[in-house]
């Protein structure tokens, strides 16, 4: 619309050869207009994604005085605690991504089988939309209020069933973190996976059935291969989501720098160990590399998946 107001002739005003010429011309203008419209987005991405990434990357290779060095990167590889924190974070991310993906996919399947306009579906989808973002201190608080040492469930079981104080120390361990992360991983899976399931057509099932296929052969030859890329893509997204989480874990386990995100915080906001900001940036660069690899994989898989979802 904006293009025609700046004086580009409408296709009908053009000479006989017009359509091709006019189409190309207006689309060139349109493309320029599109770029203009994208400026705020690019500025946003540049300011809040590329610029910080650059700051981290430069910081990782410089000393506090700004000279080039490999010491920060060296420190990451030389310090067992740093390597361990990557290992713990990756383990946590893999386990919670698998739990989230499998349970979330089953939940999505249950939702898809129901009435597409039913109240249950609306409710589940809306609830998942909220819960997928319900992380951080609030989630941890709710979790502890439920199963902490003084949690509602803990006290209920103590008062009515066991009558002794229970050992809830598992809450403050990797097990507790995994359970906690499941609260946002499963709903996130539903949100990203539901559209793919919706894309599965009844006709395909009918066609498979009319050729004598049962449920197994449908999933083996039709449903499975179609959904596999979206499932794997969602799995990677969940991995990244858990890998980069900080506030939830920090609120639950405030002691020690166990996860790599916590390890970075220990380097940059300590009043005991100072001048280690750039080691923190080297750790952050390690995270960026891992996440970037995963996201490239995700983009590739998504491109394959979108063939079917269209």
């Amino acid at each position, binding site marked *: 619309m904006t293009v025609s107001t700046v004086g580009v002739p409408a296709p009908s005003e053009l000479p006989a050869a017009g359509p091709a010429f006019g189409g190309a011309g207006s689309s060139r203008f349109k493309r320029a207009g599109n770029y203009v419209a994208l400026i705020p987005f690019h500025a946003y991405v540049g300011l809040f994604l590329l610029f910080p990434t650059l700051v981290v990357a430069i910081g990782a290779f410089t000393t506090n005085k700004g000279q080039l060095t490999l010491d920060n990167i060296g420190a990451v590889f030389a310090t067992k*605690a740093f390597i361990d924190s990557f290992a713990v974070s990756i383990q946590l991310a893999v386990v919670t991504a698998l739990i989230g993906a499998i349970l979330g996919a089953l939940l999505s399947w249950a939702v898809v089988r129901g009435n597409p306009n039913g109240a249950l579906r609306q409710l589940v989808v809306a609830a998942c939309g909220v819960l997928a973002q319900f992380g951080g201190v609030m989630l941890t608080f709710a979790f502890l209020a439920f199963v902490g040492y003084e949690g509602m469930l803990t006290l209920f079981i103590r008062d009515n069933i066991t009558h002794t104080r229970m050992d809830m120390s598992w809450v403050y361990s990797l097990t507790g973190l995994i359970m906690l992360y499941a609260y946002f991983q499963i709903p996130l899976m539903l949100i990203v996976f539901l559209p793919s399931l919706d894309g599965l057509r009844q006709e395909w099932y009918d066609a498979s059935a009319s050729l004598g296929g049962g449920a197994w052969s449908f999933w083996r030859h039709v449903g499975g291969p179609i959904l596999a890329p979206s499932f794997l893509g969602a799995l990677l997204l969940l991995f990244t989501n858990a890998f980069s989480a900080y506030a939830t874990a920090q609120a639950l386990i405030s*002691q020690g720098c166990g996860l790599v995100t916590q390890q970075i915080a*220990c380097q940059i906001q*300590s009043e005991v160990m100072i001048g280690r900001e750039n080691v923190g940036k080297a750790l952050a660069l390690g995270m960026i590399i891992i996440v970037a690899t995963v996201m490239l994989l995700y983009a590739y898989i998504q491109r394959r998946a979108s063939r079917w979802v269209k």
Partner: protein
Amino acid sequence: MKMKARMLIAVAAMSVVVGACGGSATPTAAPTTAPTAGAATAAPTAAAVDWKTATSAGAGGVDAVCAAGKAEGTLNTIALPPDWANYGQMMTDFTAKYGIKIANDQPDVDSQTEINTAKQLAGTGRQPDVFDLAPVVAAANVDMYAAYQPVVWKDIPDANKEATGLWVNNYSGFMSIGYDSSLGDIKTMADLKDPKYKGKIALNGDPLKASAGFNGVVMAALANGGSADNIQPGIDFFKALAESGNFIPVDPAPTTIASGQTPIVLDWAYNNGSQIDPLNKKGIAWKVTIPSDAPPVASWYVATINKDAAHPAAARCWAEYIYSDAGQNTWLKGFAIPVRVAAMTTAGTIDKAAQAALNPPATAPVLLTSAQIDAAKALLTSGWNFITIK
């Protein structure tokens, strides 16, 4: 900690003083004539004082600084938890007395974040005007402070201040155990191993991040055969407590104490002490003890003025207030030991009831040297971890 603070700060301050000598010689040499010295060509009125560079209250005294501060309207503070060393009272009293509002940003952050925030917000008018810093951070950022000597300068022992007033120790405290006394009676660190305290013990802050947490581990080491040279027994002590489920890795706060989530807290006596009254009102009999099976562990905090303060006069008025008799007694009432305690005891201006309630131990506190702190940090980096791979 105290010794370390002094040494480090002395070294760092020395280099700054040497560098700054040429420029700031006159102001420090003429504290009583600062208004005229600071504004040679202007009329010698109080309004002509450039508070950004004033190194003392000058001829106008505290009233002049605080009147100028009132004109500025606001004091930007950062990282002052109202329940830390009675800071809530300090801030309320200051505003009531001088009519300067306090904008207290991020009350619960650590010292390094104070410095980071000051750098990020520099020039916005929202940057902190004053800092309250842990010694290690204070020593590392001396170039960010303005030299200022409050009127009570002579009362402050030389070991507790930088010669030109770039930094001054404000209060210290002992490491303590605060606990809900309905659980039992805790006198020693060894008492904490009792199975009845399962899931109840917390340490204020990660020792790799927070000074309070760090000194808690030092205290545990001293109680378990460790020494200032070797804090490993302290790490092992907490590991064993975590193993038995007694120690939980939660960061304690007034809310976690009130809700019963962390009914036993290792923290500075001035933090644990400030919980007594609020918890009493909620029916919890909170007690504070300095464990008898370890020598006492203490550390100073450091007050400084941001040289790029948005409200330089208000910042200097705040410094005058915290070192005044009223300010020092406010800390004492919060179980912190103010830096002018000796002079005020001599002068009889100390709050005797508050001093008696504080009941400091007779033994001299243990102080870690710089090298000992570095060794402790290395041990903590590899050993202080509560999430492990399964």
